[in-house]
């Protein structure tokens, strides 16, 4: 069962959790509401950055208090998420960029010319 904390701590933990969840949810709603893929990739990073960070922080505080020792392994999770999310996003973005260019879609930057090939006249 959930443990009894000092009131201010429980308010703090609650606030972190709720705010983190709100940010995360907002990011996910971004996935629904935003119109293009390049916009949508910004949504999930709210959950992986501050949203997640707040919830993990809340957890760290909560367990540090209830276990009466420093519980910091939430940091590890935060680090892992921070390191891994960009990998997927970069690959996805590259794939999309590539495909948009091949399909000749509008609103996508031209492919960078190779240094060896002379610039178009």
């Amino acid at each position, binding site marked *: 069962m959930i443990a009894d904390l000092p009131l201010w701590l429980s308010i703090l933990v609650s606030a972190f959790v709720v705010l983190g969840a*709100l*940010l995360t949810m*907002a*990011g996910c*709603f*971004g996935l629904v*509401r*935003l119109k*293009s893929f*390049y*916009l949508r*990739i*910004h*949504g999930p*990073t*709210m959950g*992986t*950055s*501050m*949203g997640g*960070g707040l919830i993990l922080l809340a957890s760290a505080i909560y367990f540090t208090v209830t276990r009466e*020792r420093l*519980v*910091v*392994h939430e*940091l*590890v999770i935060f680090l892992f998420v*921070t*390191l891994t*999310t*960009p990998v997927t*996003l*970069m690959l996805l*973005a*590259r794939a999309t*960029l590539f495909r948009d260019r091949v399909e000749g879609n509008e609103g*996508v*930057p031209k492919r*960078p010319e*190779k*240094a060896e090939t002379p610039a178009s006249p």
Partner: protein
Amino acid sequence: MRRLLPHPILAGFLLILWLVLQQSAGLGHILFGGVIAIAVSMAASAIIPERVVIRRPLKFIQLILVAGLDIIRSNLAVMSVLFHPRPNPTAGFIEMDLTLKNPFALAILAVILTATPGSAWLEYDRARSTVLIHVFDLVDEDEWVATVKKRYEALLLEIFQ
């Protein structure tokens, strides 16, 4: 020493990781974790041949703090856009020249920019040393580039080159 500890930073990091995971800094854990950290970092040197050297550790901490602050700021900024009844950010692509060449430093920059809501690292062109970035709410392109260069690239250059 070099053969035993090809990646001292990595080994140290792994030891810390071990201790955090064990939630204990007892002597047994330190000894055992140390052995594991050294062994694993040796094994990893097959995959990661380049040795990473952090020249300015303090600057590294500064970088983390700066990035953290920026992340909080942009989180709030993006959220305000998203909770708008009709979210209509002025997004755009930016092609940015980079002075930074060290791949490890570039990776850190990529992680920071991508982890920050509102900016995403798309495509790095090694031949021309440019990167294509997508920005969620782009007001002034030049100012944005200047900010990145100042806040991150400069620091990274100091740390790694």
